[in-house]
């Protein structure tokens, strides 16, 4: 059963990921991205991480890709791009090298830490999935708002700084700059 779910979800993820790259229409690429995100959500459910699955759908599929589509539609760049033309010649070989490098790193990491993953609870801190469904969320809350609260708060400060910075950069005050 777990294998069937894994194969189906992996197929969703891969088809979506390839679609993001191959589709020439940006809207279709964004839709493929949603497929990938849903596949990841299914994987989370299969691993008993129901909360993460729900958050994955709400935040990534529900908000972030909606914003992508929003920008694509508002800017009117929703025409098909000609993928054969190439502004930077060196771009594609470099991308291939970087991609292969990342794959190699991930595979190396998995292979070297295989023993830790195989034996439950020795190398990695495996979440406790027994008990009612809420324990999952409680454990998550305890580590986010307890053990790692400083990192969490610093991240939120970073996000606020980014938002304020964006507003300041894009805002034009009349008189001081060029009036639109």
């Amino acid at each position, binding site marked *: *059963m*777990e294998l069937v*779910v894994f194969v189906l979800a992996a197929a969703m993820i891969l088809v979506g990921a390839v679609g993001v790259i191959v589709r020439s*229409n940006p*809207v*279709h690429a964004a*839709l493929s991205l*949603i497929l990938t995100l849903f596949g990841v959500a299914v994987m989370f*459910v*299969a691993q*008993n991480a*129901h*909360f993460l*699955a*729900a*958050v994955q*759908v*709400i935040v990534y*599929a*529900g*908000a972030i890709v*909606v*914003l992508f*589509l*929003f920008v694509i*539609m*508002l800017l009117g760049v*929703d025409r098909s791009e000609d993928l054969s033309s190439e502004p930077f010649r060196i771009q594609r070989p470099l991308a291939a090298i970087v991609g292969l490098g990342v794959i190699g790193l991930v595979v190396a990491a998995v292979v070297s830490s295989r023993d830790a993953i195989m034996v439950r609870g020795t190398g990695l801190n495996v979440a406790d*999935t027994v008990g*009612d*469904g*809420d324990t*999952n*969320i409680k454990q998550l809350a305890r580590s986010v708002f307890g053990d790692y609260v400083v990192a969490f708060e610093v991240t939120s400060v970073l996000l606020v700084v980014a938002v304020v910075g964006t507003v300041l950069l894009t805002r034009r*005050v*009349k008189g001081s700059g060029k009036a639109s």
Partner: protein
Amino acid sequence: MTALLGLDPLAIGDLIWAPLLIILLKVVVIFALGLLVTMFMVWFERKAIAGMGNRIGPNKAGPWGLLQTLADGIKLFFKEDLLPDRADRFVFKLAPYLAFVPAFLVWSVIPLGGDFSDGKDGLVEWFGQTTRVQLADPPVGILLFMALSSVAVYGIMLAGWSSGSKYPLLGSVRASAQMVSYEAALGLSIATVLLLAGTLSTSGIVGNQGGFTDWHVVSTGIVPFIIFMLAATAEMNRPPFDLVEAEQELVGGFNTEYSSIRFGLFFLAEFMNTVTMSGIIVTLFFGGPQGLFDIPVIPGAIEGTIWFIAKVLVFLYVYVWMRATLPRFRYDQLMDLGWKILIPASLGWFMLMAVLQLGRDEGWNRGVVGIISGVVIAGCAGLMSAAVRTSRANREREGAMF
């Protein structure tokens, strides 16, 4: 395996025929019920609005015009299905289903009945099997509703874009901006409820609301309910927030280019959303199937369903009433209401409830906690309104008109 499905007490243990049949029966009944209720809702809205507008409304098909929706549906099936020349074919065909399927799926997590008295936790006995009067009770219950409502945005957004025409595009851009902004207020007011319920599962939330004083509309103070009600109305694109379909400005909004049964699916999804949203409001704030008093003679399980239907009907009427009486908002007013009032208010109320809860757990002096949080909230509200007034003054100095 059970943890993976983990939805129903029936599914635990060996799957034998009786539970499987009951689950199948539940699926079919809930699907059919959903369609029937939606049909009824369309009729009810037309009839009630007609009454408020001093007209008769549908009265030809069936008794009191009850079958009017069925007649309209059959007519829609037989009409020509137009596909605009400039449409993106695949997405154009996909969009109605993206709007329709999430609207239906929300039904599966709403407790439609069940006996919650004496700690029975909503479980009922059917043919010797213990089950719930709801299709699924996943551990993330109410988050599933949030996820589905955020997926429903795609239906409207892609419908407008794929039509290849400017009015639908404008309508869908408006719709998605509106839905994404109001989702924040919606989520924060749900969070206040979850703070008191201590669980995400819908049956757990209902189980937490034993008597009238435990109903979340009372125990959270009435503010989250009001915020949820407003945000839900905007989320469903119903009047007075139906800028998506402002006929005077946008022809028909995102579904201008749709005809035949594809239009029918959007139409159904919209009314289905009204019904499911009323169900969610009842579940979150009004104790779901939990009654105020014991109805004599009728057994507990059916009693829950009667209470649920009665409460949902009240909200359906309120939605129709709002549509008949309130004029449409202007777009900047809509965004002001969402971002400058509803989101700060729901956030502030959430913090207040959290502090009160913490005070109760730690045994702090209630008066002191109340006074300090009152002062802090008043201070934050003052700062917020000062900021809003300053930015408004700035924009007015730059020549913006209000």
